[in-house]
């Protein structure tokens, strides 16, 4: 039955805001709404950008003159390490997340992200993790081994204090936010679009974010694995990176750059998405080459994962491998160029207007293309050898990152500020800010190429007066202060617009994308009713869309049972396939993030008993989130307006939660793959192999582990089968079998672990132990999943048509069995190989 339609837009607004809104005062801490979380991410990221900028000023002040006594070497090391860390981990990635959270649901025609509480949890993890790093810096304990944390410098013998631990733990904490955002962005783009928005009608920004989120999903796990291994080495003396005991410092470089190179494109692609969104608006025509751009985004993403070794050209890699990665590094210029030509073509074919956001985009063109060209130079091995670790590389990376990210983000700020604030600038300082930033930037970094070519290496805290670098450094420092003035002016301009800007009309730039359908600033629910999309430019095709949607004439133009509802669609066609019911404001994400912070801090201070308890508490608190999700009765298809019906997500085969598990497994597999790669890498390449002691694993225990893993996967699979799922007693039996089988696997795996030689003696034993521990953790979580599904089933959340809890567990059990069996095979193969 369709709920009573509310024909009065004001009444509809009040009814929707009552359920979607967030309470004021202390209630703001319970916010999960994507507009609020997106704003928080963006504002916090800019605050960290300010901190990173101040650190850059300190660096340039120190380097302005030779033999400067402004900063000592210890403080200088902390400052350049923190500058890189803050800009990469606390500014760039979170800003992307914030932009995605704020914009995606509005552009896609949805009312929120797929998992609003996960967004909030991610934000708190980011804030707390970032705060740990900043507090450490204030206390003089900041990381000081460079933002790449290269071993052996970052290892315990050379950095004995807590500094490196703070980096490893703080950054890993922040990365939870990035990984959770990646899963959420992918599922939101897959499932939460307006009806009719098939993939070929999706805004290009969503394509960019979809590919970026996949890159985050595969790119971040290698760094998390590397950080965990390094922290284990520092805390427990397990020698993954110590060549004297079968480890290899180059392994760290591989794991770091497996993350670090894609990271550059993870930062660039969303910025390119911003350009592909804004540029056609000011060119006053649709973008040229939509499909070519989609193809180039996908190609760029893949290619970016094949270049990581170009950061390691000087470590002594064989010529053939150099040739592979040099070729791949030059190839990445091609899809980038395709996008640049599409943008230039759009400008050429359109009637461009030079409004403020466009000015920043033109700045992007000049700076980014220059940075791209020096990137191709660096891809060529002989040149790379000459300038490795010099200021030439520093100049290149700033041209790419500031040109390819900061300028587009400033364009984005001016473009979407009217949406964000509902105001237009009264006093336009943006142009002056642009010229200060543009001139200051080029003054700083153009000349830095020459400083590098003259041989000035990066990270040195001072230099002699007779090096020939003095004037270049002074000019760079003057330029940096000019740039800082520009950023200060930008900040003032934004604050003035917030406070004194004149009220903006809806859609002030005459854009065609759906985010401009909402009122500005946007209401908590985005759309009073959801649009139906028939083209890539819905607002151009239906100019009265804002009015018709506000009147409730689209989908879900009502409030049903005080629930937060939006529509879910088929991944490719955009046909409506479900009603997604979202959770309202909750303090649980904050509580979970606080417990997570307790876990990371207890690891940092080596309070491992507290860490184990905190970890269990994190899992417990996350399970508490599910108390308000799901249904305890079947209701069949429900009305969605316009005479149509759809199943609620609890009864749908394509529920977002199932997609989240599938997508999350990919990220987990990337982590496992990194771990397996690390183990094999050490066995094949590292010095001081084979080890003196080799494990002789008990075949019976190995067999028992395999049987337990296979049985748990089989039982999990059966519990969700069409014959078993409808019968409560039968599914309970299978779930108990599943948990018991995991228990058998756990005991067998512990027996195998006890047969590993002392892990601090050699990397072989250390790597085998970690591989086994990874499987044990998954098995324990498998028990949690099985018992959780049992509880949900007993509590009435599962029926013949409501099987999401069972299917989510089924995916986990199957995956755990797969990596468990692989690990056991790998352990046996390794001990056979080294024991020969």
């Amino acid at each position, binding site marked *: 039955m369709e709920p009573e339609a509310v024909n009065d837009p004001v009444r509809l607004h009040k009814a929707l805001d009552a359920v979607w809104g967030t309470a004021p005062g202390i209630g703001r801490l319970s916010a999960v709404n994507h507009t609020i979380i997106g704003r928080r991410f963006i504002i916090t990221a800019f605050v960290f950008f300010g901190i990173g900028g101040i650190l850059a000023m300190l660096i340039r002040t120190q380097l302005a003159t030779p033999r400067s006594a402004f900063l000592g070497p210890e403080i200088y090391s902390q400052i350049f390490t923190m500058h890189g860390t803050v800009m990469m981990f606390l500014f760039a990635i979170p800003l992307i997340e914030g932009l995605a959270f704020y914009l995606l649901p509005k552009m896609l025609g949805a009312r929120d992200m797929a998992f609003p509480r996960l967004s909030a949890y991610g934000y708190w993890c980011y804030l707390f993790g970032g705060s740990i790093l900043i507090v450490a810096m204030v206390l003089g304990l900041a990381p000081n081994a460079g933002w790449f944390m290269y071993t052996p410098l970052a290892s315990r013998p050379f950095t004995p204090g807590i500094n490196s631990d703070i980096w490893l733990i703080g950054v890993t904490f922040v990365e939870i936010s990035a990984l959770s955002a990646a899963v959420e962005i992918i599922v939101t783009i897959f499932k939460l679009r307006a009806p009719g928005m098939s993939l070929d009608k999706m805004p290009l920004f969503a394509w960019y974010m979809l590919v970026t989120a996949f890159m985050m999903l595969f790119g971040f796990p290698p760094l998390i694995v590397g950080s965990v291994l390094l922290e284990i080495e520092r805390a427990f003396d397990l020698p993954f990176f110590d060549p004297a005991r079968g480890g290899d410092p180059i392994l760290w470089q591989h794991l770091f750059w497996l993350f670090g190179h894609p990271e550059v494109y993870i930062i660039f692609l969303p910025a390119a998405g911003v350009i592909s969104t804004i540029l056609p608006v000011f060119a006053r025509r649709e973008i040229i080459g939509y499909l070519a751009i989609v*193809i180039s985004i996908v*190609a760029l993403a893949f*290619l970016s994962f*094949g270049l990581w070794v170009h950061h390691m050209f000087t470590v002594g890699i*064989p010529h*053939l491998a150099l*040739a*592979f990665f040099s*070729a791949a590094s030059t190839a990445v210029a091609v899809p980038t160029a395709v996008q640049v030509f599409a943008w230039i073509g759009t400008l050429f074919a359109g009637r461009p207007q030079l409004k403020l956001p466009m000015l920043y985009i033109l700045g992007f063109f000049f700076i980014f293309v220059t940075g791209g060209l020096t990137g191709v130079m660096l891809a060529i091995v002989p040149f790379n050898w000459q300038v490795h670790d010099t200021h030439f590389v520093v100049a290149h990376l700033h041209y790419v990152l500031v040109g390819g990210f900061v300028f587009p983000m400033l364009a984005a700020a001016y473009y979407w500020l009217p949406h964000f604030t509902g105001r237009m600038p009264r006093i336009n300082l943006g142009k002056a800010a642009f010229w200060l930033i543009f001139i200051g930037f080029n003054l700083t970094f153009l000349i830095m190429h020459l400083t590098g070519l003259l041989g000035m290496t990066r990270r040195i805290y001072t230099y002699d007066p007779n090096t020939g670098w003095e004037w270049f450094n002074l000019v760079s420092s003057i330029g940096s202060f000019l740039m800082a003035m520009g950023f200060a002016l930008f900040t003032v301009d934004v604050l003035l617009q917030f406070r004194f800007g004149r009220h903006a009309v809806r859609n002030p730039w005459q854009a065609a994308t759906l985010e401009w359908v909402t009122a500005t600033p946007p209401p908590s629910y985005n759309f009073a009713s959801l649009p139906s999309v028939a083209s890539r430019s819905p607002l151009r095709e239906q100019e009265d869309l804002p009015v018709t949607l506000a009147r409730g004439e689209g989908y879900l133009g009502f409030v049903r049972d005080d629930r937060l509802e939006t529509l879910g669609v088929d991944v490719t066609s955009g046909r409506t396939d479900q009603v997604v019911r979202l959770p309202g404001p909750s303090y649980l994400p904050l509580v979970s993030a606080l417990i997570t912070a307790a876990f990371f801090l207890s690891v940092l201070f080596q309070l491992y008993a507290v860490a184990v308890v905190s970890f269990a508490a994190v899992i417990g608190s996350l399970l508490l989130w599910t108390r308000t999700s799901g249904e305890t009765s079947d209701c069949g298809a429900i009305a969605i307006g316009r005479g149509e019906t759809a199943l609620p997500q609890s009864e749908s085969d394509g529920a977002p939660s199932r997609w989240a598990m599938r997508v999350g497994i990919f990220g987990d597999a990337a982590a496992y793959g990194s771990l397996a790669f690390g183990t094999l890498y050490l066995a094949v390449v590292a010095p001081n192999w084979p080890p003196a002691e080799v494990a002789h694993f008990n075949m019976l225990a190995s067999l028992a582990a395999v049987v337990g893993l296979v049985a748990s996967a089989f039982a999990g699979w059966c519990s969700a089968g069409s014959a078993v799922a409808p019968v409560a007693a039968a599914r309970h039996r299978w779930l108990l079998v599943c948990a018991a089988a995991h228990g058998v696997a756990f005991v067998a795996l512990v027996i195998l672990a006890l047969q590993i030689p002392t892990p601090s003696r050699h990397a072989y034993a250390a790597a085998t132990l970690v591989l086994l521990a990874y499987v044990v953790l998954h098995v324990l979580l498998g028990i949690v999943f099985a018992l959780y599904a049992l509880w949900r089933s007993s509590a009435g959340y599962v029926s013949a048509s409501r099987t999401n809890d069972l299917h989510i567990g089924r995916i986990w059990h199957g995956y755990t069995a797969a990596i468990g069996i692989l690990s056991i095979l790998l352990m046996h193969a390794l001990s056979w190989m080294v024991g020969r």
Partner: protein
Amino acid sequence: MTLQQRGFFNLATGFTIWLILLGVLYGAQATGCAFDLQSVALGPVSLLRVILIGLVLCHAALLIAIFIYCRNMLSAVESRLAHFLWRGALYLTMAAMAATLWISAAITVPSIC
């Protein structure tokens, strides 16, 4: 899985194979060097170089098969969306073939270990 969904997933197929090739080549080269396979001569070339060339040819054959599959699918589908996705898959497979050729072009020349 519908034709459209298959088209969507095939956007990633060509470059996934390319990425696997790169990883396999790098891994095989390092492992071959560790086991001294470059010293085993097979006529005028080393065993390791033959293995690497064989790996490239296998991947190239796979890419050609996917190219033919995508081309056949593109001519078979009718809807605008399916056409969009299969055309994308076809062009991405072609790009992956070009990238394969580009990165493995040097396989016969430089020293392996």
